[in-house]
């Protein structure tokens, strides 16, 4: 039976592996047929900011793959505003939303996993 996994990402890319691991977990869970939500919170809003193609492994490429495979991705609007992360600067298909979207995801999930550090 399909289950729902929600992943909370609190950290940005490159300075640690958390962002990559969060999206890789999302992809693996989708591969197994589960519903997956990924909420970028606090410094996690920097992950969708990795928008351009790069000649090396990066979280932006992973996020685009995740969106293509049906992972639901949203980011915290307050956190984005505080960091001047605008929707024009981020990967298309990742809306800036309020915290209640994450609370709704938590409530409908079988498991919630946090990537922080």
């Amino acid at each position, binding site marked *: 039976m399909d289950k729902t996994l929600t992943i909370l990402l609190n950290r940005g890319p490159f300075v640690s592996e958390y962002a990559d691991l969060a999206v890789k977990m999302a992809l693996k869970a989708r591969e197994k047929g589960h519903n997956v939500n990924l909420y970028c919170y*606090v*410094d996690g809003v920097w992950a969708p900011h990795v928008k351009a193609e790069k000649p090396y492994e990066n979280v932006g490429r992973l996020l685009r793959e995740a969106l293509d495979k049906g992972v639901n991705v949203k980011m915290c609007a307050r956190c984005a*505003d505080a960091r001047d992360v605008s929707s024009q600067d981020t990967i298309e298909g990742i809306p800036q939303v309020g915290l209640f979207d994450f609370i709704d995801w938590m409530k409908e999930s079988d498991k919630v996993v946090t990537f922080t550090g």
Partner: protein
Amino acid sequence: MAEDIKQPAETDEECADCVVDVAALKARREAQGERENTWSALIMLTRGTYGHWDDAFSAVQVGNAVLAVEEAATMLLVGDGVYFAVKGQDPSGIGLANNTNYILDFLDLGGRMLVLGTSLEKRGLSLDDLLEGVDVITPARMASEVAQHNASVTF
């Protein structure tokens, strides 16, 4: 109702529900009688309050948002997170806002705040150093608290 406070946020527009409207919540709670929660969230804070300010602030915002949708929330402070509940905080000298009001709001709204005793002791602190309404728990109790909640997140 929760919908009065829970407004959808449009992309790049001012976000009405990004910071929980505690005053509106308190007014609604006062108008309500006793209620039973069917779902609960545990929010674990492992970071010191100032210097990792957005972690602490964001953690308590999650707690208040859970309370806003009529569910139960517990904050569990472990490691350096215990500093979050210390009374008499005054970070004005370093230009940061005091967290105390956020904690008092969380407690007023019916949230529970627990501190791991061993983390507290290792930092030379005790229950007397904490804000009123905060409880100190053992590691065994911490395990049972984690098990009792439907979901947990960590900051």
